[in-house]
Structures are given as structure tokens and as C-alpha cells.
């Protein structure tokens, strides 16, 4: 009987080591260790053994069972590993294939610039004010110290609808509207982004519709140095921490003194290039101290309060910022143009 056990063990181990798949292994398990398996059968024959033999054979049976179970377990593990390896091998893909396209939207470059400008000024305590794009001559011109026969009206040929109603030529009427709404309260601290319209033929540098951001601060004791400091802070946040600004005397009917503001050329960094006409400077906005007549007309006493105002062209800043050479791109909405503004 012991010999039979040994023989069975050898034969079973040999068979287990030959097995190549999980099912055959299971069959062997049943064949040797199952309820009707060979080992069980041998156990059943234990009754015929003597009392001395019985524990010896019992021990032997247990040894054989353990040996078989271990062999079966190891084989099973081995087969599972092999199966996993095979599965992984079969699952290999070409990782260089392109990913499935996910639609990607883009913000219009003018919106990007406007949001940046808004955020910079909001950070400095400005509110964002708005006004109508179709304006009364009264707000667009007269409230800004541009009476009907003022020569400066030549500077902005306008789209009139009637004698008194026109498409606003600048965002400045929002200044007057905001001040009137504030009824003399201070401080006024607003920026006004928006579309404006002028009778220009559309070409690479002109557009009959364009975008401005206007700014206005009115309070007691506002000085021209505050204008300078505010714009310097803006220029540094918008164009880089080392930016310098330069103010040049200029003329706007609604400010006095007036200044045009240059930043260091963003292309050459001030060295001089074609874009800045070799001056190292680029004009980006107009500004000045609010004209006393403008304050007066809007219900503020110029003896009591003063203010500064500024206005910039969003297209110009976008063109400088992104190197766009033709202003018409902003309004034709060619998707090949728009899709380039999809970062950051």
C-alpha cells in the first residue's frame, strides 16, 4: 500500500508538471484529491491495515496529499501567471496612435485682453461700468466738452443715425453717464470696456468697429501723479514687471492736462525696431486729468474734486501682444485665426 501511494505520488507529480492549462489541472485535482479521487480511494482501504501500519500509512497519505496540493497550487500559480502574461501581451496597443479628439474651444483674443484688463483694474479697486453703444450726441460729445462746432469733432468722423443719435465713437460717454448716476458722490473708480464705431474704411490698421477700455477716477485730491502711478502699475501687470511708461503731452477735449502714454516696445524691449519706428516706445493709450467742464457738467465741483481718465484700444494691445498684423482678423472670425488663442 505504501508502495502504491509512492507510485501514485510519482505519477501524479509527473502529470501535474506536464499540465498546460487550468482545466486539465482541475481534472488532475479531481482525479487525485477529489471525493472519488485516487487518494480517497486509498484512504478507504486503510481499514484493512494493522494498528501499527495505520498511523504510518496515515502519515504517508497526508504527506502525499500535501505534496500533491503544493504541486497543484504551484502549477496553478504558474498557469495563472502565464495566462496573465499572455493576456497582457495580447492587449498591447500602439501608444503612438493619436488620442480621440475632444472638442477644444477658444476665447476670442479681444475677450482675453478685456478680461485681463478688467482683472487688473478690479484688483486696484475699479468697478466695471457699461453704457449703450447707440448714444446721444449729448453724451458722446457735448458732455465731454465737445460742443457742436468743436474742431476736435473732425478727429472722429461718426456714424450718425439721426442728428442727435449716433454710434458712440468712444467709450467716454460712459464716464459722463456714470458720474451723473453717482450724483456727486465720490469716489468714482470705473473702467468701461466696450465696442465703439467710427467712419473708417476697413483696412489692415483701421476698423469701423473696434473696442476700447475707458477708465475714470474722481475723488478729492486726485493728482496727475496718481494717473501716472496707476498706469505704470497697469503696464507692469499687462506687459511685464520691468515695464516703464512715458507720458507725452497731448490734447483731448475732455482732459486737461492730457497725455499720451507709451510703453517700452514689447517687440524689441526698447532697443528700437520697425514696430516702434526705432524709438523704443509704443503708444498704447490716451489719458489726462478730467477737464473741469466735464466734471461740472456731470454734477461735480472742480474746486472740490479732481479726477483722471484714460482710454485704450483693445485691438492695438492685442496686436502688440500677439503680433497680429491686420486688425480685420479680429472681426472675420476665421477659425484658423481664433484657434491660435487657445492657451493659458
Amino acid at each position, binding site marked *: 500500500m505504501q508502495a502504491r501511494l509512492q507510485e501514485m505520488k510519482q505519477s501524479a507529480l509527473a502529470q501535474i508538471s506536464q499540465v498546460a492549462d487550468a482545466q486539465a489541472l482541475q481534472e488532475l485535482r479531481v482525479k487525485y484529491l477529489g471525493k472519488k479521487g485516487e487518494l480517497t480511494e486509498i484512504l478507504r482501504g486503510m481499514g484493512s491495515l494493522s494498528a501499527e501500519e495505520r498511523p504510518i500509512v496515515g502519515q504517508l497519505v497526508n504527506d502525499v496529499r500535501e505534496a500533491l496540493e503544493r504541486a497543484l497550487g504551484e502549477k496553478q500559480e504558474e498557469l495563472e501567471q502565464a495566462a496573465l502574461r499572455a493576456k497582457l501581451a495580447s492587449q498591447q496597443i500602439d501608444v503612438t496612435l493619436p488620442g480621440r479628439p475632444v472638442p477644444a474651444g477658444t476665447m*476670442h483674443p479681444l475677450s482675453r485682453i478685456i478680461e485681463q484688463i478688467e482683472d487688473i483694474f478690479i484688483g486696484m479697486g475699479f468697478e466695471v461700468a457699461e453704457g449703450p453703444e447707440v448714444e446721444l450726441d449729448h453724451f458722446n460729445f457735448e458732455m465731454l466738452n465737445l460742443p457742436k462746432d468743436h474742431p476736435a469733432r473732425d478727429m472722429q468722423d461718426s*456714424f450718425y443715425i*439721426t442728428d442727435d443719435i449716433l454710434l458712440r465713437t468712444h467709450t467716454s460717454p460712459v464716464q459722463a453717464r456714470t458720474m451723473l448716476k453717482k450724483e456727486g458722490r465720490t469716489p468714482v473708480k470705473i473702467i468701461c470696456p466696450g465696442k465703439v464705431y467710427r467712419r473708417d474704411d476697413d483696412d489692415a490698421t483701421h476698423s469701423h468697429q473696434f473696442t476700447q477700455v475707458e477708465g475714470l477716477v474722481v475723488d478729492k485730491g486726485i493728482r496727475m501723479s*496718481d494717473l501716472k502711478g496707476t498706469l505704470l502699475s497697469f503696464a507692469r501687470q499687462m506687459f511685464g514687471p520691468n515695464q516703464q511708461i512715458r507720458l507725452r503731452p497731448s490734447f483731448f477735449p475732455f482732459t486737461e492736462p492730457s497725455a499720451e502714454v507709451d510703453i517700452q516696445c514689447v517687440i524689441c524691449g526698447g532697443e528700437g525696431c520697425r514696430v516702434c519706428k526705432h524709438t523704443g516706445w509704443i503708444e498704447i493709450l490716451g489719458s489726462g*486729468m478730467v*477737464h473741469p467742464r466735464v466734471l461740472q457738467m456731470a454734477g461735480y465741483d472742480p474746486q472740490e474734486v479732481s479726477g483722471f481718465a484714460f482710454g485704450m484700444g483693445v485691438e492695438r494691445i492685442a496686436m502688440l501682444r500677439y503680433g497680429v498684423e491686420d486688425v480685420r482678423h479680429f472681426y472675420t472670425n476665421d477659425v484658423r485665426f481664433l484657434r491660435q488663442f487657445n492657451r493659458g
Partner: protein
Amino acid sequence: MKVSYQWLSDYVDLSDITPHELAEKLTRSGIEVEAVEPRNLGVSHVVVGYVKERSKHPDADRLSVCIVDAGQGEDLQIVCGAANVAQGQKVPVALPGAKLPGGIVIKRSKLRGVESQGMICSAKELGINDKLLAKDQQEGILVLPDEAEVGMDAVTYLGLDDYVLELGLTPNRSDCLSMIGVAYEVAAILGREVKLPRIEVVEDGGENPVTVQIEAKDHCYRYVGRHFTHAQIGSSPQWMKNRLMAAGVRPINNVVDITNYVMLEYGQPLHAFDAAKVANRSIVVRLAEPEEKLVTLDDQERTLDGETLVIADPEKGLAIAGIMGGANSEIVPDTTEIILEAAYFTPRSIRRSARMLGMRTEGCVRWEKGVDQSRVAEAGERAAMLIQQLAKATVSRGVASAVVQQAEPVTIAITLEKINGHLGTSLTAEEVSAIFDRLQFAYEQTGSAWRVTVPTRRGDIALPEDLIEEVARLYGYDNIPTSLPEGETVQGGLTPEQKLRRTIRHHLIGLGMAEAISYALVHPRLNAAVAGLHEGELKPIPLAMPMSEDHSVLRTGLLPSLLETLTYNRNRQNHDLAFFELGHVFLSAEEKLTRLPEERFYLGGVLTGQWVPQNWQGVKQPVDFFLVKGIVESLLSRLGIADAVYRPAADLTGMHPGRTAEVTVNGKKIGFFGQLHPQTEKTYDLEETYVFQFDVAQLAALSTPLINYAPLPKFPAVTRDLALVVDRATPAAALAETIREAAGDLLESLTLFDVYTGERIAADKKSMAFSLVYRHPERTLQDEEVQEVTSRVIQALAEKTGAELRA
């Protein structure tokens, strides 16, 4: 204004400052110099020569062989191709080694076998603009006046050793439309004095016979008439021609040139009449008769109106005041008797007439901006002196003059405190006084307060702030410190609606759409092409004077221009497109606007082509109705707008009658979306296109952006699926509504997961499968409860929609 550097140095010492340095200083203190152009574009070794002999070239019909004395010791033999070269002329001669503009170098050479020791130059070859030359000088070689000195450097003779500063003047600085005005500015910047021309008129003739009468007293404040006899009309001396050309003015004859020269010098437009043509030598300044005709110097007949100021004699109009003289009294070569006009016409009058007539002369520009009333007579005398000197005229005794009113200089009171308070500077009283001195403004000073008398030449200065600007710009804007406003700090920020617009923008971009911005001015046809969101009938809002029909009316919706954007892109092979736009539309029911139109802020979107493009996995996904609806739902959900109801909208202009939905919330229409009508698609040359349009103010009113946290469920949910067979026409929303109503609070969510029509069910039926998720917030649901609710749902569905459970 073009300013000759050499000419300017007559009035202010520029000996230690280059044209470019001067330009920089002017620009930095408020007079922008747009360009500094050298008059010499590369001419050297060109001298004045005398053509002693001219003979025909032996072997070339069109060439001449000239013997030229160019002051070189020996005469030069020069072959010349110009037809107008002749013996006895003074001409510019390029010597061997001479350089000409464009990098041309002149060498000794042989032309058809004849040696040529240089070249006789045309004006063009010397870089002189044709437009500044008389007609007879534009062809062939440049013939110089007889008095030109042989051997003299032609660059010097022609004034080419000069620079021209081109000023870009702001409208307030019309004082710098004159050389003397610029001189005052330069003198203020450099702290130097102004040297004015010394004027001396010798009245060597008889009594001035001219009478002057101003009838239009609102249009003309002053009129001065000088009278001359024995004038000799001829060409001006070269120095004057050079200066006029530097200023961009073409020389004509000495008298006309003098009026132009003095206009450039003093900023005072002048006019000369042939006195023999002026009836009674009597000048009347009056308004034109309505429809009065006058032939101007350019031989055009002009029709005037009753507001046009004319200079007339008792019989006829002689000139349109301030704009252009009449042909009937023009200075011509045989004119000998002259009336010279120096006047002050009001800017308003001249601007109106110039606009009405569509004429804009150099004189107009100055009149419109306002000339210095106090200099009228002085400028007249300056011109009289020059006419006497250069046209050898005899000046009659006395000046005919009429004055309506005088200009009074403005006096402004200002304090140091005000100046420093406005600028943020800490200037001293001495510094401020020094600036007033440099400006040559007179003042009375009391401690740190001034009463400043502003000369009439600076008509732009009327208020203390104007004076502050003068102080600031001469002190230097660079020297103003930087600071930040010191008042009460205020909270900045966006309004809720502004925030909402950003949320919409960022959400749609996140979903994969591209933001567009289009023109608010559109073609009238576009507004009618697709429905808007307004109620009632709209009238178009046209511009009074559009630049083109394409941009002639204001848009009433965003879709038309967005559709054009699609067409524009498709024409450039961009086929897969998804745009949205946020912007104003303009609504009015008025035939002609009497008040501002209503401006609404809309959101529009257009989609066409593939949403997911063709890819190697083969899963391209075209844009369709349910994609657009998904975008709309996603947006509304993002804005916290629940309870949106989608109803079929069969009659929206330009929209597909069976594929358009109107969106209402609480019974109020907030927008619509759907497929474009195939006819509209065809009009715009588009494939299947889907659009949406919403009123942003409505979205803002409904939006509930505040987030209120709900605790996570503690008990399990139970899911039941129901496959329902209903009539094909039954809308999904009706089933969902019935299910929700019947299931009550236990129903946590409801998902439609399948819609089937086909051979496995009756032809007029469809199957819709819903997944119902039940949950009780406080306990685990029992099977019986779930069964009971589900039965209730099935029963309600059967009663209200005729739905049966699918077998």
C-alpha cells in the same frame, strides 16, 4: 505742418541743436514731430552751370552736346538727353564723382562716341518732388534763374541742405500752424528769445483808394486792405521758392507766393486781388445770395448759399472768404495794381462754408482752427513789405480797415497750491514763474499766486487747468512723480450680470466652442433672415450715411452675422465649426429714432459640420439637434436655471419647423435653438446647421449661482427599468412628467436610456425605456413599497399617455 529747420532758425537760435534733437524735444513737450525728413535725398557734387554752347550730337538725334561753364576752371563737355536744354541757361550740373538720390554715381563716360564730363540734372534727378514744381519745370532739365551763381553748390542754392520737421498737431495747437508760432514753442522749450521779422513798409505811392465795408458782422471781425501799384508779377527769388517747397507749397508767382509765405510765417491766410478788376476799389464783406454763383481760381463754378461769406465789390463776388479767390480778380502776369486782404473770419463761418462746398485749402485749415486776431494787421504789413521788395510795387498811403471787434487777451488767476495739488509735484514759485517767462506769458505775481495774461496767439488757453498743462509740459511729464490715489479704498468687481457673461463664455469655450465677435452693422437683408427674440414688429435702424450697404443697419439678432461667419469659414475650407457670440442687439419700433433704441445683450451660437471629426477609430460625430440641446442644457444647468421647458416651435423665421425648440422658464420665453431651415441653409450655402439664441438678461434674472449643499444619501437606492410602448407622436417629456408626478418624492432620478422604433413593434408605435431610481432619505426601501410606486407609475402612464409595458 511742415517746418523747415533753416527757416525756423531765422526766428530762434538753433545753432547748437540738430533737427533730430529738436524733434525729440518738441515731441516730448507736446508738439508731436511725426518725421524729420532731409531735403537732400543724396545729392553731392552738383553745381550751378552755364550752358555756353549747345549743338546736336553727331550720331544721335535726341542728344545734345553742351559746353558748360560749371566754375571748374575748364569748361565741361556734357551730353544731354533733355529736349529743353538750350544755350544761355543756368542748370544744375552733376560733376564726375557726383552722387544723386537712389545711389547713382556720375562718371565720365562716352555717349554714342562723344565724351560726357558729367550730367545736367532734372528736378526729379535731384530728388525734388514734381508736385512742387511749376508745370514747365516738370519736364526735362531743371532750368535755374539767371541770377544763380555759376559754380555754386546746387544743394545750397536749392535749399536742399535743410531738414523738414513734420508736425502732427493736435486740434488745440493751431498756433503752431505758423513758423512764428513754432518759434515761440521752441523758444519756450529751449529758454531762448524769439526774433520776429523787422517790418518796414515805405508808403511811396498815392492815397489808398480802397474802401472796406463789413456787412456780415458775425462772420468777419476785421478786414484790412493794402493797395499797390506798379507791381511786377514774376517768379519769386529762389530762397522763397525753396522755403515754400520745403513747406510743401508750390511756387506760382511772386505775389501769390508772398501771400502763401506770410501765411506759413504768421499763420494768417491772405489774399491778393487784381485791383483793376475790383469795381470802385470797393470791398464789401457780405453773405452770398442764395444760389449765387462764383467761378473760383481753379476754374470751377461754385454755387453758394445764403450762409457763405463772400468778399465782393459793389457789382459782383470776388472770392469765397477764407476758402478760395475768384477767377475774375486773380493775379495774372500783367497785373500791376493789387489789393491785399488781411482779415479775421470766424472759424465757425469758414468751417461751415468749407464743408458745404467740400473744399479744404491750406487757408481753410487755419481759419477753421482760429487765427490770431491780434496779428492780422502785422501779417498784412509783412506781406506788403515783401510785395514792395520782391514785386517792386509802389505802396499806396494808408491802410483801408474795418473792425467789428477786437480780441482781448485772457487773464487767469492761479496759485502754486493748485498747480502742485493737481500735478502731484512740489514745484517752487520761482520754477513756475520761470516757465511763464519762457512761454512769454505776462503775469503779476503775489507770493505764490499769479495773474497770468495769455497772449492771443494761444487761443487754447482759457482756464487754470490749461495753464497747469503748460507748466506740466515745460516742467516735463517725466519729472512728475508716480503715486496712487490716496482716498477711501473701494471694493472693485464685476456685477452679477458681468460675472454671468463670463461664466457663459468660459462654459461654452470649455464645451468646445469658439468665441466670435462680429460687426454690429449689417446688411439690411440679414436682419430678416433668422428669427430674433423680440416681441412685436421692429423697424430697421439705418445709418444716415453708411459707408456700404453691407454695414448700413444695426443688427437685431446675433444669428445673421454668425451665419455669415460660417459661410466665410466654409469658403476657406473650414468645415467643422462651432461659434458663439455675446453682444448687443438693437431694437426699435420707431420709423425714425426719436430716442435711443433698446439694447439687449444676447448669446448666439451656430454649429455645422462634424462635432467630433473623422478619426482613426472611425467615430466621427456630426452636429445635430441633440448636441445643441445638450449644450443648452449644460449651460442652463451651469447657470443654475432649473425648470426649463422645451416646446416645439414650428413657425420661427429661418428655422426648421420640425426641429426647433423654444425654451421657456416659468412661462417666459428666454431663447430658442434648433436646425436652420433648409432654405436658409441654402441661402447661406451651408450644410446642416444648428443654432441657438438667448437673451442674457433673462438668463441673469433666472440664474441661481449660489450652491446649497445637500447631504449625501445614507440609504441604498433601488432601480427599476420600464420599457414603454407609446404612440409615435407622444413626446418624451409627457412620459417623464407623468412618471415624476406619479412616483412622487421617492423618485430620485429618471433617465431615458433607449428609444426604439422598428419591426419588433407596431409601425405607429415607439418604445421608450426609462430607468427609475428610488430612494428614501431615512430608511432602506422595502420591495413592496417599490412595487407599489412602480405600479402607480405604470397605471398613471397608461391612463395619461396610453403607454403599455413592452412585452
